[in-house]
């Protein structure tokens, strides 16, 4: 639900819930984007890293 849905209300419940939700989603999104972009950059540069020890 977004603020433009008619049943949206600006109350504490919404703020807490959506705050936590978007916080978590942002972390995931940023993390994933970071990994992908970095991998693309590394792949284009033909970099190699040490293998097998994660």
């Amino acid at each position, binding site marked *: 639900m977004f603020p433009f849905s008619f049943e949206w209300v600006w109350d504490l419940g919404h703020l807490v819930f959506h705050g936590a939700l978007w916080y978590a989603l942002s972390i995931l999104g940023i993390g994933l984007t970071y990994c992908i972009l970095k*991998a693309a950059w590394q792949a284009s540069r033909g970099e190699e890293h040490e293998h097998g020890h994660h």
Partner: protein
Amino acid sequence: MDSALIPKGVERCPLGRFLAFIAIVGAVLLWGVVAMFLIYIKGLNQTNMNNAYGFALWIWADLAVIALGGGAFFTGLLRYIFGKAELKNIINYAVLIGFVCYSSALLILAIDVGQPLRAWFIFWHANVHSMLTEVAFCLTCYFGVLTIEYIPLILENRQIERISFFRHLAHNMHGIMAVFAATGAFLSFFHQGSLGGVSGVLYGRPFGFRSGIGIWPWTFFLYTWSAAACGPCFTILVTRITEMATRKKLVKDEVIDLLAKIAGWMLVTYIAAKIVDTVYWAAVTAPAMGFTLMDFYTNNPGSAYGLWILIAEVGLCGVLPALMLIAPSVRRNARLLFLAVLLAVLGACLNRWVMILQMQAVPVLPFERWFTYFPSWQEIATTILPVAYGIILIAFSYRYLPIFPQEAELNPLPEGGR
């Protein structure tokens, strides 16, 4: 034939045998898919649910698999946040089991709703005060986390790994896995708890209702805690079953022992809290609503919810496995360990069953009678469907992905092997 796909340094059964196995499980899967389509086309009248049993086998299955899938977040938490490094040898499998559990839960949920084509309204028109909303959001997000955690495993397939981008991607994702794991644990805490809240907030249902802190009923915390306790037990159980099926040792005993020990102490604390909760509920919460404990367990011909179920859940499948798991001697005995984790897993399932099914069986209006329910074959088939799907996914993952880091070491190839 498919040897190019099989991880290095390990041996797999012949492709023919593998495919035969998949075909057998696939037949079960197909049965479930037929039932699923029957339900999609004809509607939920294909089930034995009714207006008194709006939640039934499926919701139980959802709650149960999510509780058992809790092994993923908790093992991740231990591995990445609390630094239990040994657990890296089982974390892959925990993630895979979690992935199977959560995808199954989502699948079942998608079958369970009356209007699956607009099920996304739960997101769009979300009511943030509903436990189910919280469940839906966190569940979906956490499924995303599990996917993120599972992807690097796929990327480590011998053929995929040859592509530089994927190799790098897997490496990078491993690099910041702690961030994902922490987010996953955060999300898990809330959705596991919210699942507990599903019945805990129902103040019209004295059997399920619990007091609590703020908006969170005690079941909120009990569910999270029990998922953290029983999830790893399920991971151990499935690992052991996999070892039996493959006739190989895949994870070292120390690793299992550590996880079992932590699960044991979690279970001890959980079951203590559960007992306190039960006593408080029986002595204070329910009587205030006009019910005694025995109102919930007796005089219920046809529904079979006797006091035995409480004893089975808290005693046989709670206290007993808890005590077993904290005893090193039990943990060292493979059979007893197996029994202990099995009981713990059953305990979690039984808890979820009771909180959903028995909650609805108990008559609340004094002039109503106990309600009875037995699932239809369509419900059973669609509940078994994810099990078959899980077995297939695990089989493929095991065959083609390096799930068990210690497998090669524990099972050295004979001379002349690959």
